[in-house]
């Protein structure tokens, strides 16, 4: 079969089993778009901005575990995609981004819509390729998918000059069955000796703690993790990225840890004597002050990426491997082990933890005459029975969604954790909704974030995506305002959102349903009304308390046992802080 480069590219995507291609056409990719015409296997989703194409592919990947695929043109097409590529890179999301490029003869001549896409994306991709010969095209695409989806996943960019896709140059097409790269051989199984040492150390613990992260979700290891956690009966916490791997209402689950983690999770981290980190990377939002991180603990760390180990925190027992395989091996060893956890010590440890829990750190004012954002998220959990896919943008609403939705399954909580990209939520929700058309997909956002990719309301109409947008509208860039209140003496520099649009009319002008909720008593009926509209996108503009803060909070550079607490829980607020 003789095909042009453009046809080869489309055939590669079909052979790779690509369902959706998120993209935006332009000069350098017109041959490819022509090859997409009149075929139905690869469904192209036309976004309204290239950033959204990458976020949508990213959301699709996070929800399905399959790689997201993007096609954009050269120059501004590629640069607009960079934010989404970097977002995926920071959270290790498998993605293949095909960028058009000017013809090979014009590269380096400052041609129209030329940028050095390989150079610009290099620091935020797992790998990238420039295809210089049509004969390398199919193999390069195969390599791109292989690299993106194996080992620690990540985005891969393939830059394709226009002449490579010339419809008049045809060569025989063969898609390689497999690919071998001598320079890339990711590990899977963990070292048996290290696994044995880890199990022995775990069984000596008097105050153990299990700290799980996004690696459990990415590595499809929730089942193995649940067995591991239940076998040991140890307390478990999760990073923002790992939520859902352990059900939120599991007795052993202490909630999220870190900057906005629960009191009990952070205190248990601080006091534990053996810590096992499972697919988590000791991010600064988790560790707080490095010098005082888990000061009494021996640390075991399972990660697929050797460079994550001892990067910020030195560990005692490193295990490089696929989280699912390593946990399965550990579960096996635990089953054979004659030693058992020290039940008396464990009971005492749980006693201390339950004392912390009794402080009810997540309390907030439930009798307020204003709509509390936490209440909105809790109510959405009830209405959707905790079974929705929830995307978010970045800021206070993101933390409230993480803290109060209550996730029971992995791959349901979809947010930009590493890069913290505002504008992520709506396009990511589109990707999720396409993957799961029958499921409820919610974008919890703020009036600031939603405006960063609001143009995608148009894409949602075109493809009939009934996403539920929940905008917690406090007329402030809430997290910025909170930091200004805490650390800048209430100097609210440029964090106030004036001249907001009428979101109801805006939604309507895009052909959707808009609902504004201002009064506490309207909250439940209007939310129920919105979620009953199964086949419509509903934009919920919810006017929330402007002064609400995210609690608990560890200030940057502080230790786990130094938290600002909500005034509504049984713990002192930080006495050092002047309250507004």
């Amino acid at each position, binding site marked *: 079969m003789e095909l042009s480069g453009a046809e080869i590219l489309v055939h590669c995507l079909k052979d790779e089993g690509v369902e959706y291609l998120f993209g935006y056409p332009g000069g350098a990719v017109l041959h490819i778009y022509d090859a997409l015409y009149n075929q139905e296997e690869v469904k192209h989703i036309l976004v309204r901005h290239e950033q959204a194409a990458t976020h949508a592919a990213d959301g699709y990947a996070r929800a399905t575990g399959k790689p997201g695929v993007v096609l954009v043109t050269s120059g501004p097409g590629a640069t607009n995609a960079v934010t989404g590529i970097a977002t995926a890179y920071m959270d290790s999301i498998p993605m293949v981004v095909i960028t058009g490029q000017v013809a090979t003869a014009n590269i380096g001549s400052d041609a129209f819509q030329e940028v050095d896409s*390989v*150079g610009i994306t*290099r*620091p935020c991709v*797992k*790998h990238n390729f*420039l295809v210089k010969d049509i004969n390398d095209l199919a193999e390069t695409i195969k390599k791109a998918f292989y*690299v993106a989806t194996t080992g620690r996943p990540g985005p891969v960019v393939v830059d394709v000059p226009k002449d490579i896709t010339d419809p008049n140059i045809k060569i025989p097409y063969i898609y390689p069955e497999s690919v071998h*790269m*001598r*320079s*890339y051989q990711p590990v899977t199984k963990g070292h048996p000796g290290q696994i044995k040492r880890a199990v022995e150390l775990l069984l000596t613990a008097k105050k153990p703690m299990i700290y799980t992260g996004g690696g459990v979700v990415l590595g499809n290891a929730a089942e193995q993790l649940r067995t591991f956690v239940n076998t040991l009966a140890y307390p478990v916490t999760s990073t923002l990225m790992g939520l859902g791997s352990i059900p939120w209402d599991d007795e052993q689950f202490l909630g999220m840890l870190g900057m906005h983690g629960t009191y009990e999770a952070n205190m248990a981290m601080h006091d534990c004597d053996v810590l096992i980190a499972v697919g988590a990377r000791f991010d600064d939002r988790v560790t707080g002050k490095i010098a005082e991180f888990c000061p009494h603990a021996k640390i075991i760390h399972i990660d697929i*990426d*050797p*460079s994550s*180990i*001892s*990067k910020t925190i*030195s560990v005692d027992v490193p295990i490089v491997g696929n989280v699912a395989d390593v946990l399965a091996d550990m579960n096996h060893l635990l089953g054979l082990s004659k030693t058992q956890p020290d039940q008396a010590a464990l009971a005492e440890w749980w006693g201390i933890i339950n004392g912390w829990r009794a402080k009810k750190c997540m309390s907030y004012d439930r009798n307020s005459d204003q709509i509390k954002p936490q209440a909105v998220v809790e109510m959405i959990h009830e209405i959707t029975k905790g079974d929705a896919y929830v995307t978010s943008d970045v800021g206070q609403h993101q933390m409230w969604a993480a803290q109060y939705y209550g996730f029971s399954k992995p791959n349901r909580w979809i947010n930009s954790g590493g890069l913290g990209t505002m504008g992520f939520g709506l396009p990511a929700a589109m990707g999720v909704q396409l993957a799961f058309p029958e499921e409820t997909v919610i974008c919890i956002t703020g009036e600031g974030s939603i405006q960063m990719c609001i143009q995608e309301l148009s894409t949602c109409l075109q493809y009939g995506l009934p996403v539920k947008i929940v905008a917690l509208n406090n007329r402030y860039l809430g997290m910025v305002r909170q930091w200004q209140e805490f650390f800048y003496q209430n100097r609210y520099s440029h964090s106030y959102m004036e001249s907001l649009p009428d979101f109801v009319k805006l939604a309507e002008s895009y052909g959707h349903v808009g609902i504004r909720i201002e009064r506490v008593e309207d909250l439940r009926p209007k939310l129920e009304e919105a979620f009953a509209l199964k086949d419509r996108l509903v934009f919920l503009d919810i006017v929330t308390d402007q002064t609400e803060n995210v609690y608990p909070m560890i200030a940057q550079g502080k230790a786990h046992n130094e938290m600002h607490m909500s005034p509504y829980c049984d713990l002192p607020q930080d006495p050092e802080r002047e309250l507004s």
Partner: protein
Amino acid sequence: MRHIISILIENEAGALSRVAGLFSARGYNIESLTVAPTEDASLSRMTIVTTGTDRIIEQITKQLNKLIDVVKLMELSDGPHIEREMMLIKVKAATMDQRDDVKRLSDIFRGRIIDVTASTYTIELTGAGSKLDSFIEALSEHKILETVRSGVSGIARGEKCLQLN
């Protein structure tokens, strides 16, 4: 601490910039970097001299290994090794005294004068970096017009090799 890291890397466009970009993006020091193809034209050999604590060096080697184009890596300064650097140095040599003295110093350091004009000598000198430094120091009485150093190349002593399996 000074460390020498040797890398076998795919001989592809952009491979060098991946390594250089990694060092600048993560704020690692780079003292010198040399690169050229090996006997196998598909591979380049790179020698990087860097400084840092053991923890930083560990991160550098891990991050380098993580680059998809890096095939193999060895920390040369972990074991017995040889390092060499080549220098071309152009010195003013106009008077007989200058010419005699520069020639004598060059001989002492086992340099070779490879270009001569009425007023200059150009000397080629190979050795460990410290030897090149000493030679420059020894020439302090003279006017150095130009110095070109290759950066360090290194190889392990004995049968230990950095090669494909």
